[in-house]
């Protein structure tokens, strides 16, 4: 694993401030964060699955020689992990069934009053 010499070490300006709310450098980072959390929260994958992809993406960057890799950008790895976990769970494929519509969670049989709104949340 290669890493910059300590002489290159500088702290981000936010290090000396007290962040009292989530903060992102750009809105797409916030959307990417929210997407990953939302999909996990609504049962499309266990959070650990996303985390594994994130660790893999970051690990790949860290193992790449310094002169052969892009500059560090945490949320690029986040987006890569998000694409991976979405693909692995087949979420964009035809026939993907949302967790709440799967049979593996038997529920009392009741007449549906109306079709469930697509992803209605």
């Amino acid at each position, binding site marked *: 694993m290669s890493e910059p010499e300590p002489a290159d070490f500088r702290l981000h300006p936010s290090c000396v401030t007290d962040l009292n709310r989530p903060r992102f450098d750009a809105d797409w980072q*916030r959307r990417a964060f929210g997407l990953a959390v939302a999909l996990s929260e609504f049962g499309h994958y266990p959070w650990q699955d996303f985390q594994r992809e994130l*660790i893999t993406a970051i690990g790949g960057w860290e193992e790449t020689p310094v002169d052969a890799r892009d500059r560090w950008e*945490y949320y690029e790895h986040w987006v890569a992990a998000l694409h991976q976990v979405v693909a692995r769970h087949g979420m964009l494929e035809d026939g993907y069934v949302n967790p709440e519509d799967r049979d593996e969670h038997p529920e009392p049989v009741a007449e549906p009053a109306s079709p469930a709104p697509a992803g209605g949340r």
Partner: protein
Amino acid sequence: MTAQFGYPEDREQRSAAQVRALEALLIEKGVIGSGTVDKVLGYFESEMTPVNGQKIVARAWTDPAFAQLLATDTPAAVAELDLPLGMAGAEGEHLAAVLNEPGVHNLVICTLCSCFPWPVLGLPPYWYKDPVFRARAAREPRAVLGELGVPLDPDTEVRVWDASGHSRWFVVPERPAGTDGMSEAELAALVTTESMIGVGLADAPTPA
């Protein structure tokens, strides 16, 4: 933005387009609703904040029995406080507090990626995820703490806690001097996010 953390515009645009396209596709396929991400973000930004951690720390400062329980069974202690915890799947489980004490300073890092105790600290600051910070804090925590302006007695032991999927550490800093008689709410206001990561101390009270 410094050059080290700046972000080339084309990469920025590419990433933004990717995220936009993915969310649109997921909505189109009915996997999520059009308001799902906003709803989750709204909950996160209003409820999953360091205010929760501040309340936990202030209670630990004023209630020794609570502090004891916090150290031995963090989830049980946190459950006593009626905080808006939730979203357990997103790293809310496995909270684990480590308490600073005279001669012991705790520092939380995550060498793998970003296993942060969101429910009590909100989102991690940017630098927390920086690979240089992670590597250096693990290798030479005392030097890093010095650069961050944390006063450390030479005899103080520095304990580094590496967050993982199973343990999301947060630090209970020492109660500052001169805070006798302060209410829990007043005490909570002294608890910085940095102090709960271990890269800072709790604020000293403002002289009345």
